[in-house]
């Protein structure tokens, strides 16, 4: 559909929503619309919120929306839930915790399903953030799917990443193992009224002390999001992180974000091109050959790359 980008820029909410849909469904023409929006973006402050399932991410996001709205800032939210690998369907339920903002015209909430994408985001997350940014939202909050140890992609998408945990999820070793803790700019222990909250905070702080001396400061905060407790402190910590990120670091993050966008776009295009170059039967036919052990995955990939280049695959290892 033509003209969605222009309409979205002019404040047409339906057009913006339809464009998000077209991007998520990879409809022809959607990327051209996105290109038109891109120059109008880069102004929103992007917050990432991640953590295990059931730690209260949506409830914390609900409060962050409330605080930003109080300051008169416009807020966009991308809330991601998993697609079932078995049925291909999804239940997107993050809006339930954010209901009180649903008729506020200064808040736009969009639910996305991962649709097979790993890493905590969905394939179209970057694109939907771009649309929310272009719509003039001052803040965009990305709530990742709650898988636990792997949703590290959000770092590249956000200016500030908040990792939420709760008491009693496991001991110190568990905390170290979870790679998500390395991505946190701010750590939040939610449901802090529960037993073991002090221990969890101590464990996290202990872990942070093991990092190299020059590692950036990571604050550990407590919240009871269902009662709105600790939210002011969280907002202050976000501000401090925002202010503390030097120009050089901010530029590095911008490049990191751009890199992730380029990589995702390239990956998708390459896969499409390879599927087109694979000949009759497409990638499925080649996968069947691998499954039958007639070839191996690496040789199959080499063959596809060669088909893309229009050359024969390399013979032998080359060199000595």
């Amino acid at each position, binding site marked *: 559909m033509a003209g969605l980008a222009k309409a979205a820029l002019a404040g047409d*909410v*339906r057009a913006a*929503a*339809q464009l*998000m*849909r077209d991007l998520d*469904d*990879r*409809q*022809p023409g959607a990327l051209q619309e996105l290109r038109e929006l891109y120059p109008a973006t880069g102004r929103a402050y992007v917050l990432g919120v991640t953590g295990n399932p059931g730690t209260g991410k949506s409830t914390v996001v609900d409060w962050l929306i409330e605080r930003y709205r109080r300051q008169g800032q416009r807020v966009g939210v991308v809330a991601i839930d998993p*697609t*079932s690998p078995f*049925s*291909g*369907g*999804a*239940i*997107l*339920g993050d*809006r*339930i915790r954010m*209901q009180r903002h*649903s*008729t506020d015209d200064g808040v*736009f*909430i*969009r*639910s996305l*399903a991962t*649709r097979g994408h790993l890493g905590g985001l969905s394939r179209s997350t970057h694109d939907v953030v771009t649309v929310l940014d272009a719509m003039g939202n001052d803040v965009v909050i990305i709530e990742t799917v709650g898988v636990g140890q792997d949703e590290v992609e959000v770092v590249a998408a956000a200016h500030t990443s908040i990792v939420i945990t709760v008491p009693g999820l496991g001991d110190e070793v568990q905390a170290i193992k979870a790679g998500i803790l390395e991505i946190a700019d701010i750590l939040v222990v939610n449901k802090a009224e529960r037993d073991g909250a002090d221990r969890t905070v101590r464990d996290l702080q202990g872990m942070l002390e093991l990092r190299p001396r020059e590692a950036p400061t990571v604050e550990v905060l407590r919240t009871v999001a269902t009662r709105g407790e600790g939210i002011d402190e969280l907002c202050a910590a976000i501000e401090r992180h925002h202010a503390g990120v030097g120009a050089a670091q901010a530029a590095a993050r911008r490049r990191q974000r751009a890199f992730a966008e380029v990589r995702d776009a390239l990956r998708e295009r390459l896969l*499409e091109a390879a*599927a087109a170059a694979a000949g009759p039967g497409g990638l499925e036919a080649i996968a069947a050959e691998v499954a039958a052990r007639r070839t191996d995955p690496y040789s199959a990939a080499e063959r596809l790359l060669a088909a893309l280049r229009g050359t024969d695959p390399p013979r032998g290892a080359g060199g000595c």
Partner: protein
Amino acid sequence: MPERKIRILIAKPGLDGHDRGVKIVARALADAGHEVVYTGLHQTPDMIASAAVQESVDAVGLSILSGAHLTLFPAIIEALRSRGAGDVPVFGGGIIPDEDMEALRAAGVAAVFKPGTTTTDIIKWVEANVRPR
């Protein structure tokens, strides 16, 4: 490779708090491979319409067990219209007497599922009548 999914908003308007049935329907639609945006209990017509627009859904499914269906269905269809989304089909289910069916159809409700409807019937109807926008 465009991969289109049907996206459906499932909501419970009004004051009744019985969400067991609506959750079963939401689950069944997801298990059938569709994307379901579930917004939970106690939704006002305007909340439902706003969510339907922001989520660009292909249909809105409602569960009404309170007896207020003759008020709520038309109010939600009107709320969708006033947000420029009058083309989004609305269907629903609940405890709805036969004599009210005609009035609901006249108000623009695309389908009404009565108690005893199987989830298979609902999925069949959705797949026959709802297209990705």
